[in-house]
């Protein structure tokens, strides 16, 4: 089979444009960077579409999006945005949180957004792929190019930190 690259592109990339943009948006933190990175990722995908050997098109494309976005950020911002999560500051493990405390946050989507954005990038990306895109561990492992065990531990730690962020401070308006 000689796949027609433009036909594969319609099939591989366009159906996943929202997922691609959403991931890039969460990784860059703003719309204009996300649009630029997604567009670049699409061009790369167009170039590599002929090399797609079947399987999961969304994972294949999101892997390109993720890689392009991180490279784009490094080039344009000059750093990898390594944010250290201060466990001292945000408190340690607490498995006894009342679920209702977290559910209260549903009313305040900005607080949830802020909490997700303040997660370290590796954890944030795993959480976005799992909880918002509904990816399986296997898909996340493929997209982020890490072993399954790493996916599992990033999710566990990401959730623990998010839980702390969502419950530690009671609602405080919408301070930036």
């Amino acid at each position: 089979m000689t796949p027609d690259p433009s036909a594969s592109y319609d099939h591989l990339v366009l159906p996943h444009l929202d997922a691609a943009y959403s991931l890039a948006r969460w990784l860059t933190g703003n719309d204009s960077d996300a649009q630029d990175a997604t567009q670049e990722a699409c061009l790369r995908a167009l170039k590599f579409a002929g090399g797609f050997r079947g399987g999961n098109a969304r994972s294949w494309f999101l892997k390109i999006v993720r890689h392009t976005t991180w490279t784009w950020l490094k080039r344009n911002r000059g750093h990898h945005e390594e944010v250290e999560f201060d466990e001292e500051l945000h408190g340690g493990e607490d498995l006894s949180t009342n679920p209702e405390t977290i559910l209260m946050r549903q009313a305040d989507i900005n607080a949830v957004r802020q909490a997700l954005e303040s997660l370290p990038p590796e954890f944030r990306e795993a959480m976005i792929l799992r909880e918002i895109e509904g990816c399986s561990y296997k898909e996340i492992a493929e997209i982020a190019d890490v072993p399954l065990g790493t996916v599992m531990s990033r999710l566990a730690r990401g959730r623990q930190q998010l839980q702390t962020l969502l419950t530690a401070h009671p609602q405080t308006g919408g301070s930036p």
Partner: protein
Amino acid sequence: MNCTQAQALLHPHHDGELDAANTLQMEQHLADCPQCGGALRTLEAMRAVLRQEGLRYQAPPTLRQAVLKAAQEAAKTKPAPAALRTRWQLTSVAVASLAAGVLATLFLFHLQSNNKGNPLLAELTSSHVRSLMAGHLTDVLSSDRHTVKPWFDGKLDFAPPVKDLADAGFPLIGGRLDYLTGRPVAALVYGRKKHLINLFVWPADSTPASSVPSVTEHMGYHYVQWQAGGMALWAVSDLNEAELLEFAHRWTAQ
């Protein structure tokens, strides 16, 4: 299972990544242990918060247009394989028809995009795909419904109807315990030529769906949803729409 083991498996359990045996053990432990059960409820609450509308960003129309334009320009100017290049040079009609095709794809996609926020569809997709990938298609491998049906006894809090549709060209392959929307469900596996159909069955809840099967497409798979005999039924397959609908009708008729 003790708490240390349960805590190690809590996240994969919450994510539907455990096999049937571990899932069962987890369920038992979570039912008995208030602390681990509470930890799971916290994770569930967090998921509910994260799955709300507005957290998944949508590609702005300007980006869509830019991406389409770039693809078309690349197709015109990029050095393409010889066969492809000749085709492109044949006539500009090809370009126009591609553009039309792309627009059609986008339009269809737009129609489908409503389903993308549906967590059940996402879960069904994961379960279906996982059943194909992990070598974990069936827990009980038998084309005999009198073997498959009793296998579910004691593993579920309901008795799933098991039917063999071999006569209609949909032979029963086996059954499996699966997890959807936080509850154990029966997954019955049927074949259709080289395609596989996962039929997920669980007791219908208070919001009755139609008894008339309806089709949805999501991520390249077809989903037929209907209700029969008090059960909610979801058939998932890469089979074409018509045959999957036929499966649903035959299943109900038998």
